[in-house]
């Protein structure tokens, strides 16, 4: 291993962001260590091999796999691996995170997002550069422009935001104390590859689509194979062309959603890290999508007729179906009608120098991404 060139130690190496950044670095000729744990009876190496096959690359000798558990002190690193890290002083890119918004997962989020960070930092504290993957939403509950500065919000929309903000505070303090250069990356909502549509994670943007597709398919089966009673009770029918008509009024309360494809995130993150930039960087889209436009995409993609945008006042008493959808979407509501705007004046020059711009989410891209999600049963069949 050439110790003069930086080596990158990536946590969450089998995850959506970590693996994609690793691939980007490998393509650029870097040496990468992926910290991965065994799972579902597969060893870390087996998992990484599968992953690299999925990315379609042959990593060769520049990719090392280190079995690691970030929920364990010392990461449970093998003594040899620990020694290797001590010697090569890798650049740490900490991507491991728990992204669930669910309140009942707050213990797990704390364990992964805070204690996990502490374990990574204390194990690799002789790193030459610490890169922490955070989120733009550490901004918390607020309106207007959010700067690339430490956030001190009065409140949060969920415990995920809160745990990530606490993690930011902690790592800023620790890196300052230990005099370790720190880069904080704050992406907005990440979806699949803008060119191929491929993704490893299917939450956020995907969630309304997969929920509605599931509902559509079940109702169609109820009409086709059952007696259609359930569908009728919910006011659902099929039109002459066989399309499902599901009366569903949704409300656009303004703002928009900031979405970036994973390929852009990986390239932007790599560019910032390669330049050795330190500080806080928002990796966001400059063209936010309105909720109404996304709703049109969803309606068009699912082929469900009857979805309409209505002013809140017109909703009157919502139907059970509308209430159900509203409940499903509730955790994501702050992000789909978001009045926060993320300033990226520190990130922009780096992207400009490397010629990077964030691809727009048009309907074609949207379709590609959703088609991929459907083809792998929203992740359940990616590695089968």
């Amino acid at each position: 291993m050439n110790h003069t060139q930086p080596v990158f130690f990536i946590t969450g190496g089998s995850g959506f962001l970590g693996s994609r950044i690793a691939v980007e670095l490998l393509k650029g000729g870097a040496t990468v260590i992926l910290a991965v744990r065994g799972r579902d009876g597969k060893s870390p190496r087996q998992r990484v091999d599968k992953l690299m096959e999925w990315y379609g690359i042959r990593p060769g000798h520049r990719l090392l796999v280190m079995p690691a558990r970030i929920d364990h002190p010392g990461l449970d690193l093998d003594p040899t691996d620990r020694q290797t890290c001590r010697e090569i002083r890798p650049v740490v890119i900490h991507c491991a995170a728990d992204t669930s918004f669910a309140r009942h997962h707050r213990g797990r989020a704390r364990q992964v997002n805070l204690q996990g960070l502490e374990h990574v930092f204390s194990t690799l504290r002789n790193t030459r550069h610490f890169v922490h993957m955070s989120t733009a939403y550490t901004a918390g509950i607020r309106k207007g422009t959010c700067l690339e500065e430490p956030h001190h919000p009065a409140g949060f929309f969920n415990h995920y935001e809160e745990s990530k903000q606490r993690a930011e505070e902690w790592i800023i303090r620790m890196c300052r104390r230990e005099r370790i250069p720190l880069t904080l990356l704050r992406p907005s909502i990440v979806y699949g590859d803008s060119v191929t549509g491929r993704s490893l994670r299917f939450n956020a943007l995907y969630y309304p689509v997969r929920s509605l597709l599931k509902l559509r398919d079940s109702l169609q089966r109820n009409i086709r194979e059952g007696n259609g009673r359930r569908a009728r009770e919910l006011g659902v029918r099929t039109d002459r062309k066989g399309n499902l008509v599901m009366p569903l009024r949704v409300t656009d309360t303004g703002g928009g959603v900031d979405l970036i494809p994973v390929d852009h995130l990986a390239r932007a993150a790599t560019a910032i890290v390669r330049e050795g930039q330190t500080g806080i960087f928002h990796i966001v889209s400059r063209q936010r999508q309105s909720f109404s436009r996304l709703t049109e995409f969803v309606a068009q993609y699912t082929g469900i007729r009857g979805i309409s945008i209505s002013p809140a006042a017109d909703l009157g008493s919502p139907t059970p179906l509308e209430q159900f959808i509203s409940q499903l979407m509730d955790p994501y509501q702050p992000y789909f009608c978001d009045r926060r705007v993320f300033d990226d004046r520190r990130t922009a020059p780096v992207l400009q120098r490397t010629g990077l711009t964030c691809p727009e989410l048009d309907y074609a891209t949207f379709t590609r991404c959703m088609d991929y999600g459907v083809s792998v049963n929203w992740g359940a069949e990616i590695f089968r």
Partner: protein
Amino acid sequence: MDAQKTATQCRHYAMCKIDFLDTGICPAGKAHGYTGFYPQGRMDIYAALCQKKIPVTRALVEIADSCTLCDICDRQCYFVAGLRPRQVAAALKKKVKESLLHSSPQDPIPDPFLEKLQKIVGNRWATNDPAHRICYAHDPCPVSPETLPDYVALPADTRQVQRIVRLCNRHRVPFAVRGNGSSVMGFVLTPGLVIDTVRMRELHFDPKNWVVRIGAGISAFELQKEAQKRGFRVNAAEPSASCIGNIMCSGIFSLFSASYGTGADNFVDLEMVDRQGRILRLSDPGAPNLLAFQKTDAPLPGICTRAAIRLHPVFADETAAAVPFQNRSAAVKFARELAARRLGTGLGVLGTEYISTFLSPSPDLARQARSLFAEDLGIGALVLVLGDRHTLQAIQDMEVPVMSPGLIRTLILSLPNLCRQDWKSDLTGMGGDRPPYELFCRPEFEGILETLLEPSPQTLASGVDPDLRDFFTTLYARPEMTDILWLNTFRIISSRMGREGHVVAFILYIPLEDPRLVEKLDASFREITRSHRVRGDFGFLTPLDGGRMAVLEWDLYLDHTDPGEIKRMQGAMAAAGEMIEGYFERDPRVLWIRYLLYQGLARKESFLYHSAALK
């Protein structure tokens, strides 16, 4: 799993001896009575034969030949334990056939004591054949070494039991009593004579007095079934266990104990043969006081042969509902409140281990369901309420999320769908400030969920072995299989708790005024499982006596065929015992059921409030 491995996995729950699925029971077992003729016995015999512990005897040949390979055992055993005993029976037949090619079966060994026994019970009902004896020689309990009895006898009535006891006393032969041939805790092993009460089948209802008189061979399931036909219910324990055996062991408790009580609350009178061979009735003025309790290792007071058991009326509008909570403390508090308000015929706080295990028709699905309920639906514990429509209405008025019988049915019949990865991540996505189960509990969404989850017997059956799917489809088309009230009354799914390993249950009576005690005990047990590297989990809690007290079960699980695990479990059990004693020293109301062994006849007041007795 091959035949030999399967044979060693039998948990000895004796579920193959009761017709709990309406499939009928093993015809050979029914015809011959001895445990050896049932699938449970055949498993033991085959394992012993493979290990060359027993020879091929005439009785063994008869046992092997008696099996018709009818499949009933596969259906029954798969339902509760995920095992397929038919292949064991087939392997036994094959092995015996091979053996007979080389040598004749061993003849019975003449024995004067056996002849005396046979004079009492008849030639057919006493034996010293190793094939029969091995079926009573061991159980999965990790602290009970295998003890091969010299004899097995199956008396028919109290008089025969009396004569057997006197004979044993004269010849100084130790004896142990088994009800229905089941054994899981190592209490009924002896080198002498095993008295199996399975032939004592008196069953006589006295509806005017709300009492049923039963013999010691009547199982809880049989009793409950007959009681239900007459519009009654009994407070019974595990379905295959002898009802009298349970009473004598440490008293009966169940979710219904919240209203029916425990200990002496469950019976009106008992008849027993004491250790001197005298016949006693508890109602006799001169009978020993067995209603009292002493914190000591009490000896077995005698062999109970008959009992008059209390019957409780069943109402047509009885049903069940489940109230999920994010954490157990809130669930315990709620259950206590219900008990204090005298709401619910049956009450229980269940952990996700029980919920997932009970509801899943296969071990694989149970493993997936465990994370489904805890992680994806956000359920920390669940209060199960059994009661009439007024109880259910009262609970709904308490403004807690309630899983209705319809939703419970939907969840059971769609479990394989819900456990699919796509559904699990959908549920994860649902989680916001409120856990996803709250969404499930909203009555207005019941129809939508039913549409989405597509519950059906076929869906449920997709989670079991392919060759059993038709059977499970037919089975789960029966309404009672998704009726939580029925399932709790007959308890046919609670035996599933031993599916992934033998259960070592730690049962405690505890005060309920402070739910933190439950959490402290839970943390103490968890620490033991961690330090001894064994698996365990909270089982259930049922409030007793208006919520003043409760019975709590915490379970450790082990592979009883793994010597390493047995050793670790022995350490864990010793540590758990010490830990419980520590709690007792701080608060004597924390009482380990171990001290109720053979004191199951005691009044509940005698042991729940032993520290409040007049000095």
